C-alpha cells in the first residue's frame, strides 16, 4: 500500500486505483465516449501509436498520481519528432515518487468547454452522491474548497439507483449548456451504473470535453474500487497493478500485512489500526522516531506473528522493536508462540524486542513467552519508553 495505512486508507475512502487506460476501457465498454488511444511501454511503441492515431496527440504517463499535467507527465505532440522526444522524456521519469513505465498515446480532442462529472460515496450521509460542474479541467478539489456552489450534487438512494430525473436535475443545476444537457445526463447515469457494477468508491471524468459540434468525450477517467469488494470482481483484482515504494512494502504485500515504512528507527508491531497508530504517536511523544506502521490485524496466529517480526527485522533502519498486542480476537498464547518461533531461530536476537501483551489469553501468553529473548513491560507507555531508550542507545 503506497503512502498510507491500508486500514486507515479504508477509513479515508482510499481504494484500489485503476490506471487511466484501464478505467477508459471500462468506460468505453459501457458506452461513454472516449478518445482513440493506445498503451505503450517503449518509445518505439509510443511513436508507432502516435503515427497511427495522428497528430496532435497526447502522451500521458500512467501512474497513480494527481496533477500529472502540471508535473510534466502529460505532453501534446504535433509531429513524429515531438512524439519521440516526449515519449523519451516521460517513460522512465520520476513522477512524485513513481517511475513511469507506461504511457497512453491518445488522440487530442479539440474542445470548446470542459465539464466535471463524478460519483462517490458520501460517508457522512451514508449515500452515493453524483456531482456535475461546468468548472472541469482544473483541480476540482480546489473548486470545491473555493466555490462549493459550483458543483451540483444529487444524493442517490442505493436501493433504486439513479432516477433519470436526478441526472437531469444535477446537469441543469450545474448550469450545463442545454444543447448538450441530455448527453451529459446520459454520461452521468452511465457513470453511476458502472460505479455500482464495479463496486467503485469513486468514478470520475475530469474533464468531460465538449467539442465544437456539441459532442461530449471523456478525456480522463478515474475509477477507484472498494478493496473489500474485490472478492466479487476477479477481473478488477487482476488489473490491480501493484506499485511498491520499496522491497519491504512488497514483502509486506506478500505477507498480507498493513504496513507503511517510515523514516525512524523504532520498529512497531501491533494489532488494530487505532492502537498501532496510537503506538506510533507514543513513540513520537516519548522522543523516538517510528520506523514503520505494521498492523497484524485481528486473530493473528503464531506464523503470522513470526512473519511480522521477520518483516520489521528486515528493515536495516530498525534499532529496536516494540511489540504491543491487546487481544480481543487475537489470543495472547498464539502471539507468544509466534514471538518464540521467530526469535529462537537466531543465535542472538538481532535487535532488542520489547513485548507488551494484554487482553484475551494474555496470562497464558506470558507463561509461554521465552522471556530470555525479549524485554517484557506491563503497560503500553512503559513498553514504548523502553523501546525508545534501546533505540537511542544504539544511536549513541
Amino acid at each position, binding site marked *: 500500500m503506497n503512502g498510507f495505512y491500508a486500514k486507515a486508507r479504508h477509513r*479515508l475512502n482510499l481504494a484500489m486505483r485503476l490506471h487511466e487506460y484501464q478505467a477508459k476501457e471500462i468506460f468505453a465498454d459501457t458506452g461513454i465516449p472516449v478518445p482513440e488511444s493506445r498503451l505503450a511501454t517503449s518509445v518505439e511503441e509510443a511513436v508507432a501509436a502516435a503515427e497511427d492515431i495522428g497528430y496532435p496527440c497526447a502522451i500521458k504517463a500512467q501512474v497513480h498520481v494527481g496533477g500529472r499535467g502540471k508535473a510534466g507527465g502529460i505532453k501534446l505532440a504535433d509531429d513524429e519528432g515531438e512524439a519521440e522526444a516526449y515519449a523519451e522524456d516521460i517513460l522512465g521519469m520520476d513522477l512524485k515518487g513513481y517511475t513511469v513505465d507506461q504511457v497512453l498515446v491518445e488522440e487530442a480532442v479539440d474542445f470548446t468547454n470542459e465539464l466535471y462529472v463524478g460519483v462517490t460515496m458520501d460517508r457522512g450521509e451514508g*449515500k452515493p452522491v453524483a456531482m456535475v460542474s461546468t468548472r472541469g479541467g482544473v483541480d476540482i478539489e480546489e473548486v470545491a*474548497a473555493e466555490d462549493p456552489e459550483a458543483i451540483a450534487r444529487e444524493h442517490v438512494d442505493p436501493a433504486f439507483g439513479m432516477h433519470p430525473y436526478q441526472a437531469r436535475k444535477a446537469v441543469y443545476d450545474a448550469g450545463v449548456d442545454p444543447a448538450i444537457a441530455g448527453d451529459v445526463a446520459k454520461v452521468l447515469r452511465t457513470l453511476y451504473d458502472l460505479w455500482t457494477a464495479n463496486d467503485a468508491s469513486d468514478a470520475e471524468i475530469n474533464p468531460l470535453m465538449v467539442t465544437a459540434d456539441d459532442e461530449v468525450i471523456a478525456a480522463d477517467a478515474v475509477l477507484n474500487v472498494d478493496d473489500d469488494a474485490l472478492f466479487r470482481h476477479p477481473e478488477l483484482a487482476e488489473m490491480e497493478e501493484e506499485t511498491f515504494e520499496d522491497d519491504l512494502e512488497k514483502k509486506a504485500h506478500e505477507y498480507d500485512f498493513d504496513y507503511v515504512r517510515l523514516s525512524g528507527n523504532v520498529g512497531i508491531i501491533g494489532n488494530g489500526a487505532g492502537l498501532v497508530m496510537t503506538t506510533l504517536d507514543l513513540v513520537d511523544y516519548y522522543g523516538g522516531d517510528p520506523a514503520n506502521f505494521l498492523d497484524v490485524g*485481528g*486473530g493473528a496466529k503464531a506464523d503470522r506473528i513470526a512473519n511480522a517480526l521477520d518483516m520489521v527485522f528486515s528493515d536495516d533502519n530498525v534499532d529496536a522493536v516494540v511489540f504491543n498486542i491487546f487481544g*480481543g480476537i487475537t489470543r495472547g498464547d498464539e502471539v507468544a508462540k509466534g514471538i518464540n518461533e521467530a526469535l529462537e531461530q537466531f543465535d542472538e536476537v538481532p535487535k532488542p524486542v520489547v513485548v507488551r501483551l494484554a487482553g*484475551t489469553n494474555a496470562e497464558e501468553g506470558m507463561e509461554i513467552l521465552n522471556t530470555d529473548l525479549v524485554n517484557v513491560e506491563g503497560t503500553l507507555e512503559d513498553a514504548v519508553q523502553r523501546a525508545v531508550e534501546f533505540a537511542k542507545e544504539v544511536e549513541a
Partner: protein
Amino acid sequence: MSILVDNDTRVVVQGITGGEGRFHTEQMMEYGTNVVAGAVPGKGGEDVAGVPVYDTVDAAVEAEDADASVVFVPPAFASDAVFEALDTDLDLVVAITEGIPTQDMAKVNKRLSEVDTRLIGPNCPGIITPGETKLGILPGSIFDSGNVGLVSRSGTLTYQVVDNLTSRGIGQSTAIGIGGDPIIGTDFIDALELFENDPDTEAVVMCGEIGGEDEEAAAKFIGEYMDTPVAGFIAGRTAPPGKRMGHAGAIVSGSGTGTAESKIRALNDAGVPVGDTPNEVADYVEEFL
C-alpha cells in the same frame, strides 16, 4: 445502569457455527451473556455450547424470544445477515464482521432509516455493560462496572483506554465500539446522546482517529447539548500525509477536516480535553469524577 444492553438482553448469534462465532459465543456465555439461540442457514437443529441453532433469525427469535443479535458472518454474506436481522423484530444488531463492501452498507443504511432497530458496527468489537453482559469480542476481564461511558471507533484502542481506566479503579457503565468503516450504524453522536441521558453515566470517554468528519460533528454536539463531561483521545497524530487520488471523495468530505489537528481543535473548542496518551485520558476522567 447502562445503555442498550444489560442482564435481560437475550442474544441470538448469527454465524454461531463458524470458528469465530463459536469461540466468542463461549466467551460471551462465560462472561454472563444470555445467548439464547444461534442462526445459521442449513444448521437448524444443531447446538453450539448447548445453544440451539435455527435456520433463520426469525425462527430463532420466535422460539427463544431474543431481542438482540450479534453477527459473525463472513463479509460476502454479512450484509444479507444484517438485512435478515433488521427484517426481524429485534431491538439491537451488533455486526462484528470486518470487510463488508461499502456499497452493501449503503443499502443497509437505507434500510436502517426505515426500521426501529439499532445497528452497532460493522467492523467493530461490540458493546459491553461490565458485570452484566457483552455482545461481541471485547475481552471481558479488562472491564469493571462503574460510571464512565466509553465510545470508540477502534477496537483495540478501546481496550487500551479501558485498561488505563480499570487499572486505577475507574469502572465503566457501558463501552461501545462503533467501528471504523465509512458507513456505520450507531455513530459518536448517537452514543453520546444515550450516555447523556443515562443517569448513572457520570463521565464519557470518546476515542476517535484520523479520517472522516465524525469527531468534528461529535465535538459540536458535545458543545451544544451535553452536561456530562467528556474526555477525548485521537489516534493518528504522526500519520504521514497520504497520496490521495479519489478527488470525488475529497470534495464531499471537504478540505481541512479529517486530520488529527482538526479533530483535537474541534474537541478542545467544545471544552473536551484530549489526552496525549491513553493514560492522560484516564487522568482527565479522574478529575471529572
